[in-house]
């Protein structure tokens, strides 16, 4: 009798493990199934994930725009755009498509990688930017909070894009060449001390551009992969 129960329990356990692995294997291409159906979790579809990420990037870009405008009002930097033309942001080393054609011609994996690189490259500079703003008494709390929010949002955005990339890889949309690990270029860009001497205004100037790039690339990616919803 005891043997019977143990055997039945072990059988159930084996079956359950098999089902678990099988479900994970068959997840590719199938409709997403939540592991704990009774737990109330809900699986996000790729379209939903994309929408969330794009919304997030739009918000990030909006905040960076506001901060940049504020800086322009308060500090009235020199309009030496020519000088700025020659000057590079610290993310200039990352090759990004500069036009619609270029962006459309770029492969999905590359595009995803570019996005990730950009986001990684901006994590530390934004954090330090927030720190310097907090110490500066010239800025009010509102601007300081915006900087903090911006820094957090970039962080979350990076995680979100990573999840999207994972999902896409899982779904087979993109190949597994996109690694979740930070690429050496991004690391180099973030570790480089190029951004250190950047002044706050230039930093915002650069970040505003890069956040727009991220937003744009994500939208292109999404409309290329899932063109049905809102493209």
């Amino acid at each position, binding site marked *: 009798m005891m043997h019977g129960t143990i055997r039945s329990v072990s059988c159930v356990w084996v079956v359950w493990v098999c089902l678990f692995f099988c479900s994970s294997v068959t997840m590719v291409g199938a409709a997403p199934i939540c592991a704990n159906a009774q737990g109330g979790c809900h699986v996000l579809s790729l379209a939903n994930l994309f929408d969330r990420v794009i919304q997030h990037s739009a918000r990030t870009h909006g905040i960076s725009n506001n901060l940049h405008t504020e800086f322009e009002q308060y500090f009235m930097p020199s309009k030496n*755009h020519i000088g700025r033309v020659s000057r590079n942001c610290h993310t200039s080393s990352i090759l990004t498509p500069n036009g619609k054609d270029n962006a459309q011609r770029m492969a999905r994996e590359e595009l995803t990688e570019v996005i990730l690189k950009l986001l990684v490259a901006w994590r530390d500079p934004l954090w330090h930017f927030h720190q310097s703003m907090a110490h500066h008494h010239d800025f009010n709390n509102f601007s300081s909070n915006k900087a903090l929010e911006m820094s957090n949002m970039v962080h979350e955005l990076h995680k979100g894009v990573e999840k999207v990339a994972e999902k896409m890889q899982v779904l087979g949309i993109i190949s597994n060449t996109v690694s979740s690990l930070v690429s050496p270029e991004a690391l180099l860009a973030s570790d480089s001390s190029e951004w250190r001497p950047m002044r706050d205004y230039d930093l915002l100037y650069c970040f505003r551009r890069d956040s727009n790039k991220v937003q744009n690339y994500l939208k292109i990616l999404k409309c290329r992969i899932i063109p049905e919803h809102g493209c």
Partner: protein
Amino acid sequence: MAALSSNLLLLLLMSSLDWLSTPGNGFFMARHDVTSPAPPEPHITECISRDQATFQCWWSPGNFHNLSSPGALRLFYINSLASEWKECPKYVHPNRECFFDNNHTSIWIPYCMQLRGQNNVTYYNEEDCFRVENIVRPDPPVSLNWTLLNISPSGLNYDVMVNWEAPPSADVKTGWMRIEYEIQYRAGNTTKWDALEMQRQTQQTIFGLHVGKEYEVHIRCRMRSFVRFGEFSDPIFIQVISSKGSTFPLTLVLVFGITGVLILVMLIVSSQQRRLMMILLPPVPAPKIKGIDPELLKWHTIIHRRGPDKFQLENKGKLDDLNFSSTGGGLGGPPTYATDFYQDELWVEFIEVDAEDAGTGEKEDNQGSDTQRLLDVPQPISHHMNIGFSNAVSFPDSDSGRASCYDPDVPDQDTLMATLLPGQPEDGEVKTSPAPERLLIRTQTAGPQTWFNTDFYAQVSNVMPTGGVVLSPGQQLRIQESTSGTEEEPQQGKEHKGSEDSEEEKEKEEQFQLLVVDPEGGRQAAESNTPQMFAPPSSPIPGEGYQTILPQPAETEPAATAEDGQSPYILPDSPQSQVFARVADYTVVQELNSQHSLLLNPPPRQSPPACRPQHPLKALPSMPVGYITPDLLGSLSP
């Protein structure tokens, strides 16, 4: 040459004007906070990208009209990819425009523009640098149309769904441009546009439009999370006409209905105004003390003769608190009450005159003081004259107060008998009357309604030796005594009788008044031994009112003789025809006649002295109105 140059100048002017009117003027200026006027030198006016893949730039020669010709100015640009200034890839000279196509457009990198004239003169503004994503202004959406969603149950409002399409130049399919839209609408006659929320979809619902109004709708768009809008699209017009004209009759019906109801209400109010007023504002009823028996209100005045010249008046009534003066007038009872009290039936039931005391001979001495004493009630005097008044007061039913010319105060005993002056004659009569005689004088009103302008009190105008008192009420009475009454007078001497009054009335109108007359015409002399004096209720003779007559000593004898059985009463013949008129209360004693009677109207000299005392009075000229003061008394005493 001059003509050519002038033509060129004209052309330039016109083109510059045309160009100045192009949209986008001041783009670069608008970019910065400080809006400065257009600089005089050649400058870039605006650069716009429609699709974030190409862009255009326009320039202006400024005031340098010599550079306005095509080719005089050249545009150069530079960006971070280029190492040197490059010339515009494509000129559109009529518009002074430079077009940058896809190959020459890079996003997210700064561009800077430069104008160069001949001889490498450079007009460069540092502010003319931008990034293409920041100068994007999408084209207006296309295919704007609307559909009716629903109409409210009242038929006055409706909702529409407006839909459109993204501008074809904007590549939203690939997600290259993310556009948001703004709908603006206005009613046909207003100038202010109402803007709805930014919309990311290509459709929007407009709620709460009014039926019958025409609406104008247009739309524009911009890049998401950017600032600059593109141009507005061409407007479309929305109008929904109410079917069946349902709203029109409804409002008409409402208006007419309300008007009709209002008119009806007004008619009702106006027709039933009085009733409504009675209901809403009921009149305050006058207090009626219905429980009071008029009998209880009767009171009488007692004249106590304390001496030949002294009289004391006393009011006695059945109701002890005949404080009408204090209550009626003072306690805030309706003033009409008190006045009515005095105006209505004034019944003098009896006047008791006690001829106890033999008047002393010093009439003169006492005349002045007698009046005082007469007026002074509390002094007890031996001679007792009782005059009983029965004042039957009938309280009026109506609320309206009758105007009373009289003081609603208590009939002052003093004033009541104010003119009652004991004259000389008390001696004889008084003395001769061992027993107190009582003169009963009854005055009776002709009727409550006719008792108009009647004094509350009656003046005793004369006292007969027998003790009879001649009363003269307030108003002139047209006394028409019977001759029998007049015959009695000589016996009574100077008393004033109704017959005398009748003689008086033959005399002059102003003759004074009145005697005690019984309007009923009943002779009560036969009833009792007590002489009765009747005061006629009304005095037809308009005149001055009372006249005081001093009873002369000679008259006392007739009064005494009246004891023999002749009642010194005078009966008027027809008091009914008397006219009531207002008479003065007092009069001035003019003189004394030979018989020591007061002549209030001094008679003409030709009148015989044997005339009855009334005669001189009748013969008196117009009687002055006044009081008989002790001074006059003193002067008049013989």
